[in-house]
């Protein structure tokens, strides 16, 4: 069992490392991630959202819906914890 | 062939479906209402079906499409002469069996009667649906409905034996259905169509070996329901069910549906030309001939009346398939009319067995000596049925066997002619001792006074027996089975 787990983990690692071969070099400004979608967030943030902090503008505006989801996750987690823990106490 | 579009096939189907639902709603508390629905549904169904008969006899087919299932395949009814024979048989005998069941079930105070009548109605729904189906997929649907709805009937008694018989029944038939589904899928894959065509439609698609495989899987699939040896084991075990159910299984719906499907595949999917071209008909013919002889030999050794009748059924089913497999016009005609004729004769015999059981609780032949003196009507009808199955005039069994023999000669297969004749001899060998014993032997320990079964039980028996004789004298009486078989045979062979 232990060997099997180790095997699975190592396979996962090898596959992941295999994938890095075709990745752009680290911190390469010409990588797709730096050139395809994200430049607009930096270049237009002031103009479109009047927010100098690009992270904030993406978080709260461009991808604000993700943030709504994020708060929902927190909400769900909170309710979950209450649900799980409170129940036990009452059983006692 | 002229096609008439009409809603009547659907109405006929709805009659029994609605009947089943109403039976369920009436329930155990309103027994009379429930029985009323049973009878009403059976009568309505039969009259709708017979109202279609004139059109069929005029050489037309009736079509009704419900809904598309997949490209080129519809949930569709198409009534042709061959389907009509089976539909009329099933719905006609349903009336008789319903009346009989009411008497039988009430007299024995059976439990779960609502379930019984509901499943009965559903079984007829399935059987007639199979008869009216226009294509293999619709056929499969009703075939499955029939299989499932018969299961509670087989296991009706709920004793461990009955449950075991039910399991066996399902195991054989559902495995068979899996083969059928495989074959239907393969047929659709090869031809892109599933519609029945008189004379077959798979010719020219796929390699010859593939078609042979297809035919074999079809025969294994439907053969399981038609109780062809060696996949017949479920049928004798299913004799544990109440007698009307055995009658239904044997004479009316279940095994007949199996045989009907086999014939559909032989004549309407493959067609005589293709089968003789592939040469596979001969294998099938030898195979079922073996069943014909073996079943009769086993029947000789059975002491339980219902089991003996069961093997007789296995014998006759294979005779029907053998007739179709010979592919000659007279043999096909003979096997088609043997379906209804055997139905009438066999149901007479089964109802007699039930009648004896209701009155005396006897199931073993060795205990039935002298019973004819107690129950002259019952045993008189039994004699008629036995004569018919042996093929002795003046009972209708003679006609079908005559045509089968003619067909064997026409196909120049004397070996199969001898199969028919030997089987008839064996029939005589196991039926006549019963008849003889019941009338001429002294009853041991029984009071030989007239002591007939209840009226609701006896009347259907006598009626079916009389019908067996009428069909000999006038093969076209009432339902014109003979003429329909002629039309169907003409359609099948006329095209090639």
């Amino acid at each position, binding site marked *: 069992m*232990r060997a099997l*787990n*180790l095997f*699975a*983990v*190592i396979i*996962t*690692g090898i596959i*992941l*490392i295999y994938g*890095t071969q075709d*990745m752009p*070099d*680290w*911190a*390469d*400004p010409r*990588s797709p*991630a*730096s*050139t395809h*979608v*994200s*430049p607009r*967030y*930096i*270049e237009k*943030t*002031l*103009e479109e959202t009047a927010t*100098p*902090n*690009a*992270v904030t*503008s*993406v*978080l709260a505006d461009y*991808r604000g819906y*993700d*943030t709504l*989801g*994020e*708060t929902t*996750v*927190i909400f*769900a*987690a*909170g309710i*979950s*914890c209450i649900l*799980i*823990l409170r*129940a*036990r106490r009452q059983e006692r | 062939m002229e096609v008439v579009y009409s809603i009547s096939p659907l109405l006929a189907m709805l009659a029994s479906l609605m009947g089943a639902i109403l039976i369920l709603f009436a329930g155990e508390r309103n027994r009379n209402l429930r029985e009323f629905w049973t009878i009403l549904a059976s009568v309505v169904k039969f009259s709708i079906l017979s109202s279609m008969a004139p059109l069929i006899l005029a050489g037309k087919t009736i079509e009704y499409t419900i809904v598309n299932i997949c490209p080129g395949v519809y949930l569709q009814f198409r009534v042709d002469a061959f389907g009509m024979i089976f539909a009329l048989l099933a719905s006609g005998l349903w009336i008789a069996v319903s009346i009989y069941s009411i008497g039988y079930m009430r007299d024995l105070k059976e439990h779960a009667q609502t379930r019984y009548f509901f499943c009965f109605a559903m079984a007829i729904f399935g059987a007639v649906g199979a008869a009216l189906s226009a294509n293999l997929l619709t056929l499969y649907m009703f075939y499955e409905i029939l299989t499932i709805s018969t299961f509670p009937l087989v296991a009706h008694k709920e004793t461990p034996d009955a449950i075991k018989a039910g399991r066996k029944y399902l195991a054989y038939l559902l495995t068979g259905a899996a083969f059928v589904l495989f074959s239907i899928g393969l047929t659709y894959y090869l031809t892109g169509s599933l519609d029945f065509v008189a004379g077959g439609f798979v010719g020219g698609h796929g390699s010859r070996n593939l078609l042979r495989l297809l035919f074999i899987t079809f025969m294994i699939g439907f053969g399981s329901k038609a109780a062809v040896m060696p996949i017949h084991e479920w049928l004798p075990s299913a004799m544990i069910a109440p007698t009307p159910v055995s009658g239904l299984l044997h004479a009316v719906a279940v095994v007949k549906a199996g045989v009907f499907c086999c014939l559909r595949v032989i004549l309407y999917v493959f067609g005589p030309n293709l089968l003789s071209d592939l040469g596979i008909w001969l294998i099938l013919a030898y195979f079922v001939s073996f069943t014909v002889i073996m079943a009769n030999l086993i029947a000789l050794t059975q002491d339980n009346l219902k089991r003996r009748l069961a093997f007789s059924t296995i014998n006759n089913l294979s005779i029907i398939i053998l007739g179709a497999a010979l592919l000659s016009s007279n043999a096909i005609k003979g096997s088609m009319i043997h379906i209804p004729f055997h139905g009438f004769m066999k149901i007479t015999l089964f109802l007699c067995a039930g009648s004896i059981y209701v009155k005396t609780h006897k199931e073993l032949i060795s205990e039935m000596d002298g019973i004819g003196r107690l129950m002259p009507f019952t045993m008189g009808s039994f004699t008629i049925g036995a004569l018919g199955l042996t093929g002795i005039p003046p009972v209708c069994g003679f006609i079908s066997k005559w045509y089968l023999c003619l067909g064997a000669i026409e196909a120049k297969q004397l070996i199969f002619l001898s199969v028919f004749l030997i089987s008839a001899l064996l029939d005589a060998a196991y039926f006549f001792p019963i008849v003889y014993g019941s009338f001429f032997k002294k009853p041991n320990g029984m009071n030989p006074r007239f002591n007939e079964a209840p009226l609701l039980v006896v009347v259907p028996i006598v009626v079916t027996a009389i019908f067996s004789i009428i069909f000999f004298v006038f093969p076209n009486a009432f339902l014109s089975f003979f003429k329909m078989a002629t039309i169907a045979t003409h359609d099948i062979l006329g095209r090639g």
Partner: protein
Amino acid sequence: MFDFILSRYNYWIYIILMMIGLYAMIGKKNLIKKIIGMNIFQTAIILFFISTAAKRGGTLPIIEHAHGAHPIQAASYVNPLPHVLMLTAIVVMVSTLGVALAIVIAIYRRYNTLEEDEILNLKR
């Protein structure tokens, strides 16, 4: 070859971290250790994402100068998108952690142990 390794070593480190976490998740018997493994695994993913945001010579994605002075060069700021994604992901992962811990508490209350095999023995 050396260049190749050097240019990607960051990814590799995160991958090794992931493997450690993953092994703890599926290999350890103690429930808390599993949760710690889960945390390591998730943190590694966060680091992995963040590292994709890096640009040589880039600075924080906060636009300092006022309108119109110079055109804003995307290359001079690091990519803000992975940061945003990971802000969301961190919250998601913390929530998962919270729920997992709550469940562990529930388990502990019932079985008085956190060793998986002991629990299985107790159940039997």
